């Protein structure tokens, strides 16, 4: 039980109150002034004539594909030099599937972003023996990211605002219904099986023959809310998808910023690269979508850092920088297209 005469806080201190009130006013003024003055400079809606011209160009064929199709790749190429080369899914489209169309043919400005903090409610995700849970970390980082994106002028939606369980189906449905331009799912990894247990990796939609990735996707897909038949149908339809290329561009931009920023404070963190994997939350969203494994709870040092707000803030800042970089790239690609 406590000591008989505990130290008491001071009472009725006018100077201290004045200082606190000044803090209240400053905090409110910061909130008021940081309200986005205007949106990011938006591309005007794509005109029908532009669409028609773009379609004509795509039909015209290989020349345009070669000249424009690699724009995103080329600009994002420096990312993840050590990463495994993602499978070129477009080279093996399903029989009867439409020919792959370059995402650069339909560049649109990024306006609305759905931030998806992984797990939630009874689904804790990974966790340390001390109780640090993935669901809490992803929510915290997601909120920070959302704030930053909103301050940058994007419209932001969240798949969950609190500690609630949301099925993967509902997460994707929300993003689709809101007409999101990008979907960013935030997760924290648990790495074992002899691999380095600390690293950052970013996924976009696609198949994988890596057993580790397959297992990870299976674990993350567990709360899907989809029947097996739905899953098969969805997977059958995706691989010639236009979104895949855009998603890879986004994944690369985000991975590059994450690695650069985290290595400033933790140089030993491994760049595990940009990878494709059939996460259902990526399958069922109808816009470019990524799943970022922003850290690894399996590493004690990383877990210690994740418990610190500054580290989570750093991750959110890096995610935001990656998304902004990608959106600027999309806008500039559109400008190049119009110039042609």
């Amino acid at each position: 039980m406590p000591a008989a005469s505990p130290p008491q806080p001071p009472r009725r201190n006018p100077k201290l109150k004045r200082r606190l009130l000044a803090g209240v006013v400053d905090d409110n003024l910061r909130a008021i002034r940081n309200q986005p003055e205007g949106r990011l400079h938006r591309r005007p809606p794509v005109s029908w004539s532009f669409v028609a011209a773009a379609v004509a160009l795509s039909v015209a064929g290989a020349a345009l594909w070669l000249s424009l199709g690699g724009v995103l790749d080329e600009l994002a190429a420096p990312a993840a030099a050590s990463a495994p080369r993602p499978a070129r899914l477009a080279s093996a489209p399903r029989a009867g599937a439409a020919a792959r169309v370059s995402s650069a043919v339909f560049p649109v400005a990024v306006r609305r972003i759905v931030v998806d903090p992984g797990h939630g409610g009874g689904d804790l995700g990974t966790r340390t023996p001390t109780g640090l849970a993935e669901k809490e970390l992803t929510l915290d980082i997601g909120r920070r990211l959302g704030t930053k994106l909103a301050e940058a002028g994007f419209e932001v939606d969240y798949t969950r605002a609190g500690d609630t369980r949301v099925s993967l189906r509902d997460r994707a449905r929300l993003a689709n219904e809101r007409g999101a331009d990008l979907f960013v799912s935030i997760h924290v990894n648990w790495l074992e099986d002899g691999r380095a247990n600390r690293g950052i990796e970013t996924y976009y939609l696609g198949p994988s023959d890596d057993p580790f990735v397959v297992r990870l996707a299976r674990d993350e897909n567990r709360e899907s809310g989809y029947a097996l038949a739905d899953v098969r149908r969805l997977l059958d339809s995706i691989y010639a998808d236009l979104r895949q290329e855009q998603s890879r561009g986004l994944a690369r931009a985000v991975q590059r910023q994450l690695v650069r920023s985290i290595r400033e404070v933790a140089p030993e963190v491994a760049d595990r690269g940009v990878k494709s994997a059939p996460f259902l939350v990526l399958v069922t969203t109808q816009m470019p979508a990524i799943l970022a494994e922003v850290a690894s709870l399996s590493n004690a040092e990383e877990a210690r850092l994740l418990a610190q707000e500054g580290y989570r803030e750093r991750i959110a800042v890096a995610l935001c920088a990656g998304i902004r970089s990608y959106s600027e790239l999309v806008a500039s690609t559109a400008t190049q297209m119009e110039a042609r």
Partner: protein
Amino acid sequence: MSAKEKFLSVGIDLGTSQSAIAASNDTRHVVDSYVGWPVDMVARKVVKKAVLLGEEALDNRAVLDLHRPLEQGLIKEGSEKDLAAVKEILAHLIRLAVADDRERRVRAVVGVPAETMRVNKQQLRQILKGTVDSLMIVSEPFAVAYGIDALLHTMIVDVGAGTTDFCVMRGRYPTEEDQRTLTKAGDSVDDLLAKLIRERHPEVQFSEYMVRTWKEQHGFVGESKEKVVVSAPVHGKMHELDITEPLRVACESLVAPFSETMIDLLAAVDPEYQETVRQNVILSGRGARIRGLAKELQRALDELGGGKVRMVDDPVFAGALGGLAIAHDADESDWEKVAA
């Protein structure tokens, strides 16, 4: 008439489950944070109102489009109805406080969860435009601390329905590092209690409102000298139900995360003040009225050398009264800066 007399100052605790207001004309009100609109013309004829709030809305929920617009202490996003519902709640509270004082303009201090996102504060500011003359938004635990003069070397644990806010007062307006928000709070206890009862007694019919009432009337942690027996229908016939053990387990689900968060925040306090803070941990909020909670949290502090956890005198109004104290102490120049 002095400036202070010209204005009615109000402090508002905007809560997920209940919202409270305290005003400088000595009025105090608390309403359930529910808003309902009649579902059709027939319903409108039945309830004879365009919109119903609080208990009245709950009582007539069968014929209403009922909204509980706050989730984890934040305004739910994506629904104009929820934003409208928040506006209705705030306007209703202010109408109750203003009463016959209609000539006086209103200056409001609204308490929100400690880690409320800036976009949410901006939404709140937008909602209150035209309803109040000036507005300050503060973190709820800070409002509690201010109201009871616990301004230095204290820790406030404000247990609401949607969130529990922790705040260490260090003689400055709290920053992110001084505060934590957990979503382990009244609602999470209700959810767990309902789940446990359903597991034990799948045949029993009960609603979330019944569960909340049981928790509020009988909630406890630790040993209970007597059984908690409630009544609930089974196939339409009332049965007595022993919920002692599920209630204990559900309420005790708060103890571990609260203890960990307290210890985590304490560790960040300057070493020479840690003991003072440990001896001045203050519980507030409607959710803190669980019998034995303060004692259990105090026990958790034993491993750090002991401490004292006590309850504020008026846990329901502590936040609103704190907001009122801030409104009262703020200078004219402060209010002018934050005009709505």
